[in-house]
């Protein structure tokens, strides 16, 4: 056992990156759920984003184009979900599960010729001067652009939901779609926009995985991260900052337990592997334990089908 081999600075830098796919997907799902839609297809949208981003990056040689393509492909898949559930009024739970299965299937089909290829490397965004600082430099100022984007999105989503009129309308639609409709707001339009936004973020999360973290394409490489993102949104009681905490906690414990395994610590591997799930859910359950407040923040129309009649 050699705990000295774990470098805390590198650990924190790795944690920020490792948490980013989940954080992106969870922020997207947060907005979707706040509008009253439950999209269980996060895993499917992530992996479609991962494969689409990978293919476009490899073919064009540009990681930036790949990342854009990932967002667009997953948004398109989300739009399919939106049309099915909002226009054709299909069941959200069944459609979301179907979306995940469909995404996993089509991504392995699309990615068949791309297994084992290395994508063009996307450089870190080394901020001049700042990245040379000790400790803070490698941790904060020499990360990949997607890490900064995900943090900006957390602040942006928080601000959007709290302070803007569109955010207020989105929350209102999620809270009571009948009342929002009676006041003349478009429930359908608001929800479709939220669903597409959520899809795009899930796609970004997927691209972050296949182009930056791994970077490689393997079938089923999201490995349940979409489900973790869904769980974090609920256990974080639909608050942007708690979702951030949950995502970093999960990413952090995942990275730490890998390091601990490598260091040969005397804890069974099985326990270490399950620790990120256990610790994240435990912590989020404890901070959201005030049931009434959590209920008040939960969108009341979540998962309910809306049809404007009369």
């Amino acid at each position, binding site marked *: 056992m050699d705990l000295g081999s774990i470098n805390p600075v590198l650990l924190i830098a790795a944690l920020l990156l490792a948490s980013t796919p989940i954080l992106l997907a969870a922020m997207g799902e947060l907005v979707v759920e706040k509008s009253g839609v439950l999209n269980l297809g996060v895993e499917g949208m992530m992996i479609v984003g991962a494969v689409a981003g990978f293919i476009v990056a490899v073919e064009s040689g540009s990681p930036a184009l790949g990342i854009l393509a990932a967002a667009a492909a997953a948004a398109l898949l989300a739009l399919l979900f939106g049309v099915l559930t909002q226009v054709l009024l299909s069941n959200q739970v069944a459609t979301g599960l179907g979306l995940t299965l469909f995404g996993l299937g089509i991504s392995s089909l699309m990615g068949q010729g791309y297994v084992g290829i290395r994508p063009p490397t996307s450089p870190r965004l080394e901020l001049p001067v700042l990245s040379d600082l000790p400790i803070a430099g490698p941790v904060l100022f020499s990360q990949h652009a997607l890490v900064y984007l995900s943090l900006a999105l957390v602040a942006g989503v928080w601000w959007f939901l709290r302070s803007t*009129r569109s955010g*207020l*309308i989105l*929350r*209102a639609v999620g*809270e*009571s779609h*009948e*009342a*929002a409709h*009676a*006041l*003349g*707001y478009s429930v359908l339009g608001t929800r479709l926009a939220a669903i597409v936004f959520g899809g795009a973020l899930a796609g970004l999360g997927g691209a972050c995985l296949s182009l930056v973290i791994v970077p490689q394409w393997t079938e089923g490489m999201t490995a349940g991260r979409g489900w973790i993102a869904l769980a974090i949104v609920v256990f974080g009681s639909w608050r942007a900052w708690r979702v951030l905490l949950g995502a970093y906690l999960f990413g952090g414990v995942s990275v730490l337990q890998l390091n601990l395994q490598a260091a040969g610590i005397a804890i069974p591997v099985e326990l270490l592997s399950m620790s990120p799930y256990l610790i994240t859910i435990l912590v989020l359950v404890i901070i959201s334990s005030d049931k*009434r407040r959590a*209920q*008040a*923040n939960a*969108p*009341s129309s979540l998962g309910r089908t809306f049809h404007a009649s*009369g």
Partner: protein
Amino acid sequence: MGRSVRRDPGSDGAARVSTPLLEVQGLRKAYPGVVANDDVSFSARRGEVHALLGENGAGKSTLVKTVYGLLRPDDGRMQLDGRVYAPASPHDARQAGVAMVFQHFSLFEALDVAENVALGMEVPPPMRELATRIRDVSETYGLPLDPSRLVGTLSAGERQRVEIIRCLLQDPQVLIMDEPTSVLTPQEVAILFETLKRLRAEGKLILYISHKLEEIRALCDWATILRHGKVTGSCDPRQKSARELAETMVGSELALPAARTQDPGEVALSIAGLTAASGAAFGTELKNISLEVRRGEILGIGGVAGNGQDELLAALSGESRSAPDSILLGDLPIGSFGPNERRALGVLAAPEERLGHATAPDMNLIENAALSGRHRMRMVSRGFVNWRKARAHAEHVIKQFDVRVPGAGSVARSLSGGNLQKFVIGREILQQPDVLVVNQPTWGLDAAAAAAIRQSLLDLASQGAAVIVISQDLDELMEISTRFSALNEGRLSEPRDAAGLTLEEIGLMLGGAHDLEIGQGSSGPERAVGPGETVP
């Protein structure tokens, strides 16, 4: 204020010569199978409270939804202030100066007052300025309200204020009010009437929908009466008796409940020291509830919605359980029994929410009859449902209680509110309960349907059942209860004999003591409107 038109209080139709603000001509709206509005025409002036009166399903709601731009008419024209008015959406209507306070409040419980107000405005000011304006308007019109409170924590009366203030901030010319008093205490009604009179004096037009005839007689200057989607008459309601109005509206003699004569029998059900937390997010905790109800009596429980009514019903029906001894059926402790065990023993309940709580919306009436009656009506043997019995029960209810449906196979969702309520109450009464608990039995029902339901409750009591009626309609409780008690913030007042109580005393029992301040110029709490009384 400058354009206000003074009303001549003693005048009749002759005073209605000034040009109309809103004119509706030949409006028609048809749904599959029913014509909701058929050639509806009326006109209304500035500075007028104009009543739209009619039974359930008469087409009032369709008519005002059309005026508010939620529905597009199939045919007909509207004019607002001399110009063609055809709103494609509520946005258009609000821009043209038409605002609406909804029957079922269109509020968002998890948002605060200011956010709710902002959602109803076309171009809301920044939040801080909006909060100031909400305070200003609420003080001007005597409707105290804190902009930062969550709407979920407000009483029904306060929620209505949010809606009214939301409308007033847009400075509308026409204010539509759909059943505004159905959830208010007498004191709150008095405050609302003060506000409406003030708005009338400012020259606004108020379209006022209600079934409560005395209210319309007290407040409104003119009434347009609808029946089956058509205008059947218009009159000055102050010149007519409530009975005459009701007859124009219903088209038949109104059946007033007969007086009760029986002496109460032994105690059928008693509750001692029941305390229960609410399962709902913004629910009310029941605090130390004790009551007794005897055979042959109706115990009326008044109170404004949200003071523990739903929780009390859940505790009585068995949906929320308590210590065995806290509820006794005769001598039998039933506090720990669930709804099915209680139903089998003859304790039946009809909750307030007809669709989704009392009935399963997408199941038909036979299935819904079986759901509540399967134990007591012996519809189940060896795990199988006897559908013939269930159908017979449903058809019996439909016939006995005049539920207007094509047949027992119709799904619950397709019934109008009044018809469904008749079915829900009838379904329980025909099971011959020993104890029946009903919550808001006539909410939103027209006079004829409400009278029929009240009569059936009286009949049930006179056959020796114990009946508990939880209602916000005090006139109703006075009419049918033997004893009266009130729920306020989860506490139940000591039941008193209903005879001899005045509405004022009851209002105070209800905890109406809060928010008594009325806009300046008023002389303290006014009695709500009683029969034969007019408000100056």
